[in-house]
Each structure stands twice: as C-alpha cells, then as structure tokens.
C-alpha cells in the first residue's frame, strides 16, 4: 500500500516538471521579451548612454537569451534573485520576511471562514427550499455583488477611523499584538467578504450530497434528520470541501493583497502591488515562480488528502 502511494507521489512530482518548466518559460518570456528593456526605467530620466549600458551589463541583459534563461533557472534553484531594483533589499530576504505577516492574517481567516462556512451550510441544509433558504441565498448574492473595495473602505472608515475600535493601519513586532490588534479588522473584513461565496459553494456541496440515494436509505433506517445531516451528509460533503480549501490556499496568499495594502500589513500581497507599481521585476518574478510551485505542491497535497478521505478513490 505504501509502495503504491510512494510511486504515485513520485509520478506526480515527475509530471510537475513540465508544468514548472512552462511557468519558468512563461515568466521569462513575459519579463525578458514582452516587458521591454527595463534599463531605461532604472537609469532614470537624465541618464546617458553609458549609464544605461552599465545597467544592462549589470542585469545581464546584454547576454543572449539562452544565457539569460539559464541564469534565471539558477536563480530559482538557489533562491537568490539578487536585490530588488527599487529598494536594494535582497529579494530572498523580502520573501522570507513578508511571509509571516501574510500568514498571520491568512491562517486565522481560513480557519474561521471554513468553520463558519460549514456550520452555516449545514444549518441551511435543514431548511432547504424554504423562504429562509431563498432569502439567505439572495443575501449572499447581494453581499457578493458589493466590491471588496467598498467593504474595506467603509469598514476601515467606520470601525477604525470614526469609532476607533481598531487601528486604522499598522503592524508591530510582537506576534500576539499583531494577531489580536492589527490583524483583527482585516480578518473581520476578509470574513465578511468571503462568507457569502463560501457559503454558496459549501451549500451546493451539501445539497448535492443530501440528494443522494444513501440519504434515502438513512431515512429508511429511521435515523433522525439531525444525524443524517451532521454525520452522513457532512462526512461526504467534507470531501469536496477539504479539497477546495487545500487547493485554494496558495491563491489566498495573493488574494489578501488588498487587505494588506489598505492596512499597511507588510505581507507578500502588498509586496506584489508595490513591485508592480515600481516595475520591480526581480521581486515579481520570484514571487510568481514560487507561488506557482507552492500551488502545484498544494494541489498534490489536496489530491493525497482526497484519497485519504474518500475510500472510493484508488490512487493510480
């Protein structure tokens, strides 16, 4: 049994290589070809030809593209992208230090969002088809229609600026202080924004399961409606829920970028926006490549979890 799992993992890792290669090529093409020559940007307004040529040599842009590609690959494998063009900080240091704050917001957010999503979805499943159900669904639709920007602007203005319940912006050095004080409002807003789509999705998972034949059998056995939903249906609905949450985690990392930007949280998302604003290519390249790698790894983990949780699935 172990052997088949091991060989499955190996085969998946093997299959990831072409994808990773594709990502590397895509990023390379985007930045080194479509992106144009950044040396003009970096040289500043009044640079002369010599300065520009210097910068080009520094960045290795005067080399043939095969060499540039090789340099890029080396950078990825050694985690060394040199320094950010705008701040001069080593890129690897940027990535390492920004990961913490991002996770401080994301992990509690994911946990709360999943927990509330499941609880509400199961509660709704009891009253499916009723007026309550339809009203809640309409409320979700309306909630999803309001741009996240509006949520952030209004909450930040109302709860932090006007009422002073939370700090408007900022980040500290102490982990607990960060978690309870600075991350609180962003997490709250993140929850408010994500609860509607999460509830809709989880509800559809739960309803799909509730319509299956084994639920009819459970009723025929005389089980109470509560037991049917909380034990039989939930256990089956957990499968798509878990795989969804797992597969979405890397996207969340970037998705929180708006929260980080508005609240001045020094995380990966905010870093991406800053880098895009400043055309800081090394930072963007590094983040893109590593997030892509993380996504592939998380997809593999999601599939392994899927197999662990669903007895029907045989790893092939």
């Amino acid at each position, binding site marked *: 049994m172990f052997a088949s799992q091991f060989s499955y993992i190996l085969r998946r890792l093997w299959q990831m290589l*072409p*994808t*990773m290669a*594709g*990502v590397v090529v*895509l*990023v390379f093409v*985007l*930045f080194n070809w*479509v*992106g*144009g020559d950044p040396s003009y940007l970096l040289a500043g307004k009044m640079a002369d030809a010599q300065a520009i040529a210097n910068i080009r040599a520094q960045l290795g842009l005067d080399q043939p593209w095969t060499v540039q590609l090789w340099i890029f690959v080396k950078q990825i494998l050694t985690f060394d992208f040199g320094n950010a063009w705008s701040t001069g900080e080593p890129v690897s240091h940027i990535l390492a230090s920004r990961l913490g704050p991002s996770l401080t917001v994301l992990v509690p957010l994911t946990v709360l969002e999943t927990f509330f999503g499941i609880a509400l979805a199961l509660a709704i499943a009891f009253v*499916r*088809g009723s007026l309550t159900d339809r009203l809640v669904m*309409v409320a979700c*639709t*309306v909630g*999803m*229609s*309001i*741009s*996240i*920007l*509006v949520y952030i*602007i*209004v909450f930040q*203005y109302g709860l932090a*600026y006007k009422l002073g319940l939370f700090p408007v912006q900022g980040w500290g050095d102490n982990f607990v202080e960060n978690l309870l004080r600075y991350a609180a409002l962003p997490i709250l807003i993140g929850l408010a924004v994500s609860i509607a789509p999460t509830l809709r999705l989880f509800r559809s998972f739960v*309803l799909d399961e509730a*319509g299956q034949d084994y639920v009819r059998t459970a009723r025929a056995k005389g089980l109470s409606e509560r037991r049917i939903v909380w034990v039989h249906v939930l256990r089956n609905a957990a499968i798509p829920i878990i795989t969804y949450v797992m597969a979405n985690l*890397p*996207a969340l*990392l*970037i*998705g929180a*970028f*708006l929260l980080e930007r508005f609240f001045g949280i020094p995380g990966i998302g905010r870093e*991406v*926006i800053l*880098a*895009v*604003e400043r*055309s800081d*290519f090394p930072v*963007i390249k590094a*983040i*893109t490549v590593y*997030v*892509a*790698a993380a*996504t*592939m790894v998380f997809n593999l983990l999601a599939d392994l979890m899927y197999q662990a949780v669903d007895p029907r699935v045989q790893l092939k």
Partner: protein
Amino acid sequence: MMRADTVQLHAASPGLWTLAWRRLRADRVAMVSLAVVGLFLLSVLLSALGLVAADWEDEVAVNYAPPAFMGPDPALAALATPPAPAPPNAFDPLAGDIAALKAALVADAARQGKATQVAKAATLPFGADKWGHDIVRKTIKGGQTSIVVGLVAALVAVALGTLFGALSGFYGGVVDDLFNWFYNVFTSIPSILMILTVAAVLQTRGVLTIVLILGLTGWTGPYRLIRAEYIKHKAREYVMAADAIGASGWRRMFVHIFPNVSHVALVQMSILVVGFIKAEVILSFLGFGVPVGVVSWGSMLNEAQNELILGKWWQLAAAASAMALLVTAFSLFADALRDALDPKLK
C-alpha cells in the same frame, strides 16, 4: 418516468431554448433581474454612442458639491455662480450704438460656443467630485467602461476556453496533453497574480489592454468545464451513433456535441462577466486599469477613498450602489438562467 407509454403529440415541438425561455418567463425574480440588466445595457449603449454622459468631463458644479437632497454646502456657496440669465436679443435695430451692438454680438457668440466658463451649480442630483464633475454622468460613463470590459473580456475568455476545451476533450491524446499543459501552467499562477504580472509587463494602459489581460488569463475556467462536457458527451451513445452512420470528427464535435454543451458555455460567460467587472474595478482602483482621463467605477472608488475622510460620501455611494445593483441583477439572472436550462427536481 411517470409518463404513460403513449404520448400525445401537440402542435408545436419546443426545443431546449424555447423550454428554457418559458421557464424563465415564469420566474419573477429572473424577469426583474433581466429588466435591470437591460437598463444598464441600454445606458451603456447610449453612453457609447455619446448620447448621454458625453460631457462628463465638464466641471459643472463647485468642488465637492453635495447632492441635491442634502441642500447646498454653505461653505462653498460663495464659489457658485448662478447660471447666466437669458440675454435679450442683442440685435436691436432701434439701438443706436454700433459698438455696443458689436460687443453684444461677440458676447452672444461666446456664450453659445463651447464656453469654458460654464455655470457652477451649488448642488447636483447626486453631487459632484473634487473637480466639480457630475457624479451621475460619471457613474454612467464609468459603467460603460466597466461593463464593456466585463462583457468583451468574458466573450474572449469563453471563446478561447470553449475552443480549447472542445479540441482537448474530443480528440484526447497529444492534443489533450498539450492543452492540459497550458492549463496547468496558467492555473499554477493565481489569476490575480497573473493579471498583476501582465499589467506590470505591459506598460501601456488602456481598455484594450485590460480586456486582453482578463480574456487571456480567464479562459481556464471555461476550458475545464467544456473539456469535461466534451469527454462526457463523446462517450454517449448518440455520438457513437453519429460515428457509426459516418459523421466526420468535425461534424460530431460542432454539429452534434456543441449544441448540447452551448448552454454550459453561456452560463460560464454570465459568471465570468460578473467576475471581470469586479476585477476591472479593482485594477482601475489600483491604477493598473484604465488610463488617466478615462473614468471607470474603479477610478471613482479610488477618488472616493480620500473624499470619505473629508466627509464627502456621495461618489462612493454612487459607484458602489450602481455596481452592486448591476452585479446582483446579473448574478440572479445567471442563476435563474442556469436553472432554466438544466432544471433539477430538488
């Protein structure tokens, strides 16, 4: 299943779309949403043709003029200039003074031409922004930008995704492997990151750029669904029957399977429109979307952020509610459309 074995053949035989339309018509929520969406689309059309809101850039009010229902702001009243009273006809044949006549004619001409000195109102129906632009006109014009981007980008994404998905699902083998590889590469990078990256790389700003970015990154969702549908349908007996009677591969793919799959593509498109409108708003907010000088709901929200601290909330309210109304209506309609095309007994 509960039907008897004999069947009465009534006069008209409805196809899928006719049946779906009948179901939609019976759904009140769907009809109301459709009407709302229709109104928005109408405003987009009129705005694009220049019939309304073409003059949104005119500074027609004092800076930060409040909405009419709030009354004028006393602090700014001084800046307001009342509209010029209608002048008497300058050509008075009984007027003796030719110089005065000339001056009056010149003044008249200046008034009737593109006057830079337009009257500055103290209040507007929904207020004004920092430069005195009419919020109502900005909202309409901004809506045109955001909605057109959403629609066109969704069209591009669904067209690409459907074509790739059909080829992939139907032919399988190497073609499938190739497209799957593309799919894996594109989906390894979260879409927001993809969009931001391409925005960083394409230095030019513009509506076309956003449409391309969204369309070229958004094809992955439809691709996966359409591919799954094609794989499912290819194994169905009616396609095997078509093969048995001699239909070619292309014919099976487009004449046989596609009509059975087109409703999925349509629902996908409606979902993407909503997502892309929201994405455009965020992009424009961040400054990566529309260029300066083009208004979109996103740029309006950007300005609104600073105005809020000064206590001026009307631009935020206008952009937010217009967007919320459209997206809600569109989402409700998309849900109803999906149910009408594929009803399941719940």
